[in-house]
């Protein structure tokens, strides 16, 4: 009881700090592919945050949210990468 009550909030804080670092790269990235890569990494960090939140509140409902975040991250990143690959072929 005493270990998890500080270890899981510490893990949540580290994941939130990781998301902030990714957000800095997302806002500052010099090219478009840097921003897409940072958004993909941010989806991964958010999914890990959802898994740790599910352990923090002892609820299995966060698992489905994490699965949805992973799914939308894959679809969004792949669509944006294909746009980067194809949007300049037309140009």
């Amino acid at each position, binding site marked *: 009881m005493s270990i*998890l009550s500080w270890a899981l909030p510490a893990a949540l804080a580290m994941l939130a700090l990781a998301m902030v670092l990714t957000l800095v*790269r997302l806002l500052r990235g010099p090219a478009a592919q840097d921003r897409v*890569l940072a958004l993909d990494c941010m989806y991964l960090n958010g*999914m890990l945050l959802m898994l*740790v939140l599910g352990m923090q509140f002892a609820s299995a409902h966060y698992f489905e949210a994490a699965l949805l975040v992973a799914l939308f991250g*894959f679809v969004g990143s792949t669509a944006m990468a294909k746009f980067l*690959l194809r949007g300049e072929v037309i140009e």
Partner: protein
Amino acid sequence: MSTADLPLWAEVAVAALALLGAGIALVGSLGLLRLPTYFERVHAPAIIATLGLWCIMHASIVYFSVLGRSLALHPLLIALFIAITVPVTNIFLMRAALFRARRAGQSVPPNLSHKAAPEAENS
């Protein structure tokens, strides 16, 4: 209801795995922020998708298995899904970045997938 009652070994295992996974996520994000060029930066999130995700997934499996007193393997589904989808996304992103770098005239390796024109190979 912060956390439920777990035995001590399960608490130590879950805490160690969750902290290790979160620390690896922090290291990967710091690498994404600090590395100088795009082709070095694209390697940094791979450690989040492999080692960090698998650490937190094992923490979740141990936590829910001990909590529910039965084997809970549903976090393995996320890890398998990520293991399938992250290489696809990364290959698309790297191909897009190589295409844009070739278009911008930077010194990247030439295209090997189909026959390039002879004057385009020394660019």
